């Protein structure tokens, strides 16, 4: 049985696609056959982050409409075994995704894959609702910033009321908090919400903390999921996150400021 995980946030620009790419790649690296599905119809971007933008022939909506089959449409990742991408359509038709259509495609994917990662668009419109509807688990990507935390709480409300599991009275979606763009220095100065603050407000289990990192932009520039940059802080933090998603207990890293030397303490820098 495939596990469906939605990567969602409400707010835009917090790192949903970066996280979807990293999580999908990480699960595949751990030996699980994984597909990442881009639900951001009209604003396809997962292909760019995964570095397969020139290999897109058919898309999600083509499959729903029966214009192409899954085998023709899925893009096999060239770097990572067991990893596939289902690109979003560029159509401007907001209603291109129907619940029946999405269900059909997910059911077909579920026969073949261990994990289906749904990369949600921002907002609470139909695309975002479609991405979370069939989920078994949710990774709620949040920045330590007021509007992002508030929107995450909004999305948590949707997860518990507007999903298939909620409507059918099944066990609720398992919710995970993924805190991204975390800057321990600013937290220490009292300029940024801390991990504990965000955990207290949202009251869900923490699955990972990704530090604000130059590696993320470098990764997207080159179309390479940041989790493959194993020397980087962000890459390592995502690797830890994958282990926790798979049920391992891993201590959190990158939460504290690196100790500075004596001169720096006096004169700053």
């Amino acid at each position: 049985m495939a596990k469906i995980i939605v990567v969602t946030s409400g707010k835009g620009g917090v790192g949903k696609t970066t996280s979807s790419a990293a999580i999908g790649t990480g699960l595949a690296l751990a030996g699980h056959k994984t597909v990442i599905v881009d639900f951001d119809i009209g604003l396809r971007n997962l292909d760019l982050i995964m570095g397969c933008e020139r290999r897109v022939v058919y898309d999600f909506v083509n499959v729903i409409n029966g214009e192409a089959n899954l085998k023709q449409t899925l893009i096999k990742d060239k770097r990572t075994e067991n990893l596939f991408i289902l690109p979003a359509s560029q159509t401007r038709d907001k209603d291109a995704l129907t619940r029946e259509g999405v269900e059909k495609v997910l059911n077909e994917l579920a026969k073949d894959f261990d994990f289906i990662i749904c990369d949600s668009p921002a907002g609470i419109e139909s695309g975002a609702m479609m991405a979370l509807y069939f989920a078994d688990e949710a990774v709620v990507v949040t920045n330590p910033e007021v509007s992002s935390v508030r929107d995450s709480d909004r999305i948590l409300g949707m997860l518990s009321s507007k999903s298939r599991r909620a409507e059918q009275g099944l066990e609720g979606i398992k919710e995970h908090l993924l805190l991204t763009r975390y800057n321990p220095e600013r937290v220490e100065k009292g300029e940024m919400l801390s991990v504990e603050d965000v955990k207290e407000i949202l009251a869900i289990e923490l699955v990972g903390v990704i530090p604000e990192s130059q590696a993320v932009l470098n990764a997207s520039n080159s179309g390479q999921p940041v989790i493959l940059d194993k020397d980087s802080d962000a890459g390592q933090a995502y690797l830890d996150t994958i282990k926790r998603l798979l049920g391992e207990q891993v201590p959190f890293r990158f939460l504290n400021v690196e100790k500075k030397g004596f001169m720096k303490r006096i004169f700053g820098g």
Partner: protein
Amino acid sequence: MSLLDYFRSSKKNTASTAKERLQIIVAHERKRRNGPDYLPQLERDILEVIRKYVDIPADQIAVSLEQRGDQISVLELNVTFPDDKR
């Protein structure tokens, strides 16, 4: 933070302000979310009625519906009157 920064800074801690604001708005919105759709309109209507008699600001009224057990829901109405109008 360097030692010089320490003496320079007298600003207040913005992260704790953020946390307080979030706690309030999130609690407020969760209450809304769990209540029935007519609650905001009911709140506005009650406010209008009270305002016919006493001039109170809009944020001085709170209406909530609480579920107590399976059978009973309690509609709770909290109105804060200004001191001089009592």
